[in-house]
């Protein structure tokens, strides 16, 4: 399954290294992260990682296959 996370603010490439499994796409005042999520455990792990880095998630959705 693929997910998209919409994060507040622009995230620098250096910080995005914390998510090597996701692609980063800057949009105005936000950053999109997209990528394959293995399972629920991975999903919750990603959410924790966003939180660990002080990034706030505005939207999260599962992408159609």
């Amino acid at each position, binding site marked *: 399954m693929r997910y998209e996370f919409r994060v507040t603010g622009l995230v620098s490439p250096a910080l995005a290294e914390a998510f090597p499994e996701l692609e980063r796409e800057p949009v105005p005042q936000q950053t999109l992260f997209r990528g394959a999520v293995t399972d629920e455990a991975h999903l919750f792990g990603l959410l924790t990682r966003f939180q660990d*880095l002080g990034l706030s998630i505005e939207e999260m959705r599962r992408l159609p296959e």
Partner: protein
Amino acid sequence: MTAASPTPSGDPLLAAKLSVPPVLRGLVSRRRLLDRLTEGTNGPLTLVTGPAGAGKTTAVASWAHHGTAPGPVVWVTPDREDSPRVFWAHVLEAFRRRLLLPDGGAGLPRAGDSAGRALLVRFAAALEGLAEPVVLVVDGLDKAPGREVAAGLEFLVDHAGPGLRLLLTSRVDPLLPLHRYRAEGRLCELRGAELAFTPREAAALLRGHGLAPGGEVVAGLTRRTEGWAAGLRLCALAVQRSGDPAGFATSYLASEQAVADYLLAEVLDAQPAAAQELLARTSVLDRVHPELADALTGRADAERILDRLVRDNCFVQPVAGTRWFRVHPLFAGVLHARLRSRWPGLEPVLHRRAARWFAASGQLTETLVHAAAAGDWPYAAGEAVRHLLAGRLLAGLDEGRIDALFSGMPADVPGAEAALVTAARLLARHDAAAARRWVLRAERRVRHREAAAGAGPEVRLTLALLRLLLAPHGTGSGAGAAARRTAELMAEVPAYRLKEHPEIEALRCHGRACALLAAGRPDETRAAFEETVRACTGEATHLVRHAAWGRLALAEAVRGELTAAADHAARALDVAERQGIPEDRRSGAGQLALATVACERCDFPTARHHLALAAEFTDTAADPVLRAERAVVRSRVELAHGRWAAASAVLDEAEPQVPGWPAGRLAVARSAVALARGDPAAALSALHRPGPPGAGRAAVPGDASRTVALALAHLAAGRPARALRLVAAADACPAPDLPDRVRIGLLRARAAALAGDRPAARALLGEALDAAAPEQLRRPFAEAGPWLRHLLRDVPPPAARWLTAGPPGRPAGPVLVEALSGREREVLAYAARMMSNEEIAAALHLSVNTVKTHLRSVYRKLGTSRRREAVERGRELHLL
């Protein structure tokens, strides 16, 4: 040293986890939060939630130092790697250190000793006796392992009495029934919005850093950071560097960067290159030691840099009383990302260096964590074996962490050590077949190396120990040699290492005893298990002690030593409960022994109860001895209820790949089923069926059971002389077990009765009764057949009263002497539905006379004279 080993009380790292953290310089006193916490701790539960860097710990720590708590404050900071067991051990230890438990917590286990429901019950009871309120702070509950800890806290909230005030901080809502607590008005919550800084508080924070920007700047920064404490502190640091608050605010407010990203980059980039590199390189660590940091940077300035970062309030904090430092999690995450982007490929190198540093300072778990993270598996496995880790895994001392570490190890890692670690992990999970394959692989690799340099004593000891513990899963042959080899190799390993690992000696004793049990040597088995229990003295050996008591009980139950078996089984269960051995590591041997005891006493409901409990443990299916015994007891219970098809099916189910002694037990049980359905020929052939390969026909002492079973079959086939000859041979064996002795006596009584010598038969029956009475061993009498009932009438009542009196503590229940046939059960079932003989006859397509014959036969077998009595008794015996 590891999460599993109880940390010595003198450990300063533990001391830091169990004390209120010091409050930072320049901290803003936020009165409204202090008041809310004081108010909250008047009730049972206060919850502080917010994202990383929201200032949760700071708020609660400054409140604790502020002195308005309703009583003493006990502080616990969980670590991510702590198991629930360790978490509760730390809570207890924290209470104990503050001398807050009545009687100093007597009756509660020592730290690291225990957990589980029993512990919580006792802990809650101790807390009910508190003289004054105590606040228990769990700082960072999100790091404590999920449901289990939350369930324990929920239990405390409900049962610890009004003295306990819980104060929890967490990044996520804990798994507690918060809605219920809210509805009951028992919960005080401080959430993110309340923790956020107001512009006024932000101004105070900036003033604390020696800054006095204008109101507009403060308002802007507060808005941009949404009052986020870490963000404001980062702003302060950045402004301190630039010295131009307004300029900073302008460029910051104009930036579209994520808050943390922008600020962390600002602060980090302002650091000197050496500090930046140190922070990035040490981001692979949970906490930083100056010497370890030097090992990672290849320089010698770590201590100086770290001290300066602390002085500058730069998100690095010393761990009180130690030389360790902690980096704020927010910072650590960013640093880790930087390391990857600026120095790609360096991470594994750093983990390798860290592994070697930890190995040199004797910290095995950390060594393995970093070796695994580096993918340096040969090194990880080598260190693990050198520290005799297999013993820890098998004695249940690991808590799953090391097992999880090695779960990432690829199958093609070379070296005997890797194969040994894999084998130990598999065997700890009772997967003997796979473990054996890896032991063989390890053996080949050791032999290969022996030619070159020779394997260390720890490698050879681990190999010998695994072989010994695997012996009962095979034919059991070679166990004696493996036990001796293990003992020899233990002498070659440095003595201090064995002293650190008492579980090795315990496992050696246990392995030897299990092998003796599987080889059908009951006489030596008991002494060997007793030796095991004696070897299990400390905390490291609870699991082995539990398993040894259970198997000792089973060995005794099989020999008819029912009183001792029940006692030792109870000890096995007690050790498990008291020491909080995790359910998935427990052995079902104790439950199985209790089932056997109940079955031998003809208390079948109890036997079924324990069988059901025993089935929940992995080893009653995985261990050949337990698997066979479980099938034997199940078969006997089915047989007692006249369900011989089921009795036979459970034995067939257990048969495949069961070698040696267990095969013999199954054969005897199968012949008993055949006899019960009146087929002596099948009973004989069950005993003559060649066992699986390797089982052999060696005259092991346990063979007396088989001889007695053969004799019973011949007797049933009308060949009493032959039966008596066989019995004479069995009796000549060194002391048959009690059940066999009783069966021999009964067989002789039956033969005498058949020969018309009733006085002799009576006397023999009397002897058998006297022999069986002390253990209340009823089953040989119950299965003997209807002839016994007639003969029993001639025995003076006192001698036989115990037989019909029913097991102690239960209402007197009848003993089913002869199983009902299938038709008889059907007729009884219809009778129970209040159907007349005519109706039953119609339903079963039988004549009324046949139904009457069946009913008479049912009455006779159940020892009743009327239909209603028969139905009642049928219910008692679970025939209906």
